[in-house]
């Protein structure tokens, strides 16, 4: 995989990609599926409550005309789905050996990128609340930093949050061991 856009250092590699669970846009997807069936619902409604609408005479093939507009409707829904999916998929944390690169795709052409070095991380908290999150293994992940303003990074509905915490902690400990190979002792 090519990670040029991340501008990684020479000896730096992505070891984990953290993304949200697919359930975050399941609601939108279900809404779009409903919208795909909406023309048929409206047609049935008109047939029952306003049948005189169908006395409008059209010169050509009515079914072909209906199919034409229906395919345009489906194309609009398809586009909407992928705009939402792009926002979901480009919301990602890249965990490397040295830092976490936090990317938040707020909307198209609206992107926020932050970096957190492991030596600045104070704590990683995960929250898995509820039956469905427990069964589907997703939850919230919060990374507390040791910056002046105590800035925290937060991602909701993360896939496999336990694995995320394990990787971040193991990298954090490795960085700590490298900084203080004989332990953090002070001579008196």
């Amino acid at each position, binding site marked *: 995989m090519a990670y040029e856009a991340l501008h990684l250092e020479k000896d730096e590699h992505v070891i984990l990609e953290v993304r949200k669970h697919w359930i975050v846009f399941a609601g939108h997807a279900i809404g779009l599926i409903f919208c795909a069936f909406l023309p048929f619902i409206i047609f049935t409604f008109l047939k029952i409550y306003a049948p005189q609408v169908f006395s409008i*005479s059209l010169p050509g093939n009515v079914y072909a005309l209906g199919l034409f507009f229906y395919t345009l409707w489906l194309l609009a829904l398809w586009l909407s789905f992928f705009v939402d999916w792009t926002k979901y998929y480009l919301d990602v944390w890249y965990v490397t050996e040295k830092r976490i690169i936090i990317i938040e795709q707020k909307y198209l052409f609206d992107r926020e990128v932050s970096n957190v070095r492991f030596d600045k991380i104070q704590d990683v908290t995960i929250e898995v609340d509820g039956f469905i999150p427990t069964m589907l293994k997703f939850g919230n992940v919060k990374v507390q930093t040791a910056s002046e303003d105590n800035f925290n990074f937060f991602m909701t509905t993360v896939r496999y949050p336990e694995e995320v915490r394990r990787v971040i902690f193991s990298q954090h400990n490795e960085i700590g061991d490298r900084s203080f190979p004989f332990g953090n002792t002070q001579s008196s």
Partner: protein
Amino acid sequence: MTIPKLTLVFPHLALNLIISTPALVIILLGFFVIYAIFSLVLYYHWLSYGMGNKGILAAEGLYFMVSVFLFVISALAITYY
């Protein structure tokens, strides 16, 4: 004393709407232009920020295949109108 019945009468619609094939072609072309602009925007994001990810590649393939299929269907619908 009898209560008067309220009946709703809708106007009878018997209009001859003229929707011609050239009009449908213009609608399709206009829609295609808008769709192409949004597709380019999506493709730019996938290319710039997708990192060559398998999910992005699969999404690209699926998106364009279904889009082409639906545009072909709509073009065929015009020919059968």
